[in-house]
């Protein structure tokens, strides 16, 4: 949050605001490239079933671990499945996990955070629970949760979501706590607006910008955590290819057939890179200092 209180509109604060915000023209091409890459990967993944040459699950025990060839663009894995088909299809699920985890954590976190931020009575208990959830190491929680529910898509998303929720809650709560001191909120109280109305109409929109940013980070880290869970044997079933479990399955073959890690890894890294970059750009663009500058 900008510390500069706009009440002191000294030139220097205007300057610093301007200093760290990219005016449209100065964003550079980075975000554009990032967006293009991301769109490309998303499109390629979503449309994967239309163009991949093989069923990503079709095995052929007689052509295992083949090097790239005309028949198999990126070769085959240890089940003789076509790596190209798996990687492209895997993107769908990985992205789904990313987006799913982001939406669920942001949604839950927003609801809980608003309540905690505004209702003093609930705050203590909610925050203690959130502290506890944060204190439990996420990865261990995830392994336990996946063991509990079986490694379905849903349980992986939930497992990734639970440790993220407290972070979102803290974020939302802190925004609400700051925003409720804003004069315009006090003005709304003076105008006789009810608490729910203030909460939803005045305070919630403030959380939007930081949540978008947070959401992109959650999305990126969810894709990554899924890979780590797969590595530890607690990821999504190999019947549903994801970048994570393709890499995890390929990890023993790292030296013999690096493609199994390289290709999904490349797409995954590019994706996360792009998402993070867009998140950073969003943060810069949504920087509250921007709004004040325009005044």
């Amino acid at each position, binding site marked *: 949050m900008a510390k500069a*209180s*706009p*009440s*002191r*509109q*000294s*030139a*220097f604060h205007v*300057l*610093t605001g*301007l*200093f760290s915000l990219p005016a449209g023209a100065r964003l550079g091409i980075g975000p554009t490239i990032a967006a293009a890459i991301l769109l490309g990967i998303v499109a390629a993944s979503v449309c994967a079933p239309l163009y991949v040459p093989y069923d990503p699950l079709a095995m052929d025990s007689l052509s295992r671990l083949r090097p790239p060839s005309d028949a198999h663009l990126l070769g085959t894995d240890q089940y003789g499945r076509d790596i190209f088909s798996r990687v492209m299809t895997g993107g769908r699920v990985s992205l789904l996990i990313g987006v799913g985890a982001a939406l669920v954590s942001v949604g839950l976190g927003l609801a809980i955070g608003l309540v905690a931020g505004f209702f003093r009575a609930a705050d203590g208990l909610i925050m203690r629970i959130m502290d506890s959830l944060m204190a439990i190491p996420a990865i261990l929680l995830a392994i336990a949760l996946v063991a509990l529910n079986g490694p379905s898509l849903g349980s992986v998303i939930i497992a990734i979501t639970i440790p993220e929720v407290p972070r979102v809650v803290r974020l939302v709560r802190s925004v609400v706590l700051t925003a409720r001191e*804003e*004069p*315009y909120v*006090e*003005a*709304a*109280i*003076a*105008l*006789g*607006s*009810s608490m729910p*109305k203030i909460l939803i109409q*005045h305070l919630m*929109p*403030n959380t939007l910008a930081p949540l978008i940013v947070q959401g992109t980070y959650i999305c990126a880290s969810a894709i990554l955590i899924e890979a780590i869970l797969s590595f530890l044997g607690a990821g999504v079933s190999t019947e549903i290819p994801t970048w994570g479990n393709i890499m995890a399955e390929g990890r023993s073959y790292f030296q013999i057939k690096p493609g199994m890690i390289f290709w999904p890894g490349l797409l995954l890294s590019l994706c996360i890179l792009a998402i993070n970059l867009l998140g950073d750009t969003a943060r810069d663009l949504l920087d509250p200092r921007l*709004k*004040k500058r*325009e*005044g």
Partner: protein
Amino acid sequence: MEFKSRDFSDAARVLKIRGLKVGLAGRPEAAPVIDGIDLDIRAGETHCLVGESGSGKSVTSLAIMGLLPRGALEVRGGSIDLEGVEITQASAAEMRGLRAMRLSMIFQEPMTALNPVLRVGEQIEEVLNMHTDLSAADARQRTLDIMEQVHLPDVERIYRAFPHQLSGGQRQRIMIAMALVLDPHLLIADEPTTALDVTTQLQILKLIAELQARKGTALLFITHDMGVVAEIADTVSVMQNGRIVERAPIHELLTAPKEDYTRKLLTAVPTLAPRAARPDARGGDVLKVADLEMVYGGGGVLRRGGGVTAASEVSFAIGPGRTLGIVGESGSGKSTVARCIMRLIDPTGGAVHVAGTEISRLPRRSLRPHRKHLQIVFQDPYRSLNPRWTVARSLCEGPINFGTPRAEALAHAAELMEIVGLPRDALRRYPHQFSGGQRQRIAIARAVAMKPDLLVADEAVSALDVSVQAQVLDLLDDVQAKFGIAMLFITHDLRVAAQICDEVLVMQKGRVVEHGPAANVLSDPHHAYTRTLIEAAPGRHWDFANFRALDTAPAPGPKGETA
């Protein structure tokens, strides 16, 4: 009133600026921020730079210091000559050598200009360490000396203090000590007293004058406060849109300004002569406050030893159509009283009657119907409107809460826009598309939309430029006359209080020390504190708007001085 009238034509020229142009970095096509200014300052001279907000005063000072923000602003042309050194061409190392030795600067905000994590003594001493070969002991002694010179008490203790442990005035003294410890030839002060209350401001101004006289320093003093200018300036430059439109010795400027812009600036300055009181109320009091008390932070289970008593035994009443002003220095409890009345906080004692209802104890829910009787306008025009809402939505929020149909509320909002002097189509715009003054008008419209009986204005014009301030004050006057609203007007600026209030209430440390008709309080103060306040008001003997001295001295102090 006496003005400075020394002649500096023989003194050595310390700073010489010719045709200085500053523009946005990397955007040569954009209009320059500083558009070819000339400026001369000679040893011992106090040169004041005035002008409305955004006219380029700070940018000028930063250009002289070589501190224009990299990547945002750059010098486009012209020269800045400091005793023969060309600053626009100087290397970073040369610039570092000049700073503090030959040229230093004091900034507006003593709160933020000092590094909060370093001891203030160390911060002064750092200047010595950077620029001299003094031994540690000598440096420390020099530091203590200069701290004595700026009249800091108990220098040994303050040396070790962190900025947050000092008052605003003390911090500004540290800044001054830091700027002057190496006896620079040029001192730039960018609004060094704007953030301070009047009494402290007076002390700081005196201090600067004293040191300047002793060391013969040239002073470039930036301010928007004409009162201050009148007190200290030898020469005044008036800036507008990056140009210097008029330059003259102080007396000449105040008595016979040549440029329209200068005239406009001067006429906007309110006088300390109290206005004629409005006719007394016909009906009963709109607001009656009795023995209001507010203690912050007391009563907590873990916090023993009581809290801060921000207000106690505050009682007053306001009739319809009348204005009561609350004045007092910072922290005296003015806002606390306002917030208690608005029930933004719950007073710990006393009673508040609004339109006949005692509201200080009402639970929030039953309070809501009474909200429409009282409305508030805040100081900060940038934060008092929801930046994500259109003006129309902000204006309709209250009426809709009280059951007005949306269409009707909108129609009323459009009328209000006219009343506050904004175009109707402004309804569709967002707050950031307006200037501070315009936003304050919108905030007033929003309050008025509720047809309240009482309007509380907490420093409603303090953040605005004098010229804008005058317009908003006029607006408030109009609205009040039109709707017969009672107004509680909080300000630290006695001129503003004089211009708008029927009655004035002076607060100090949470208590009411004086209360009466504005004319009485301002021209015949009984309490010593009120007198200090009035005496500290800079330029209080000058009637800027009429380019002459005030004939009725506003505050006949014990030994009332006259112009």
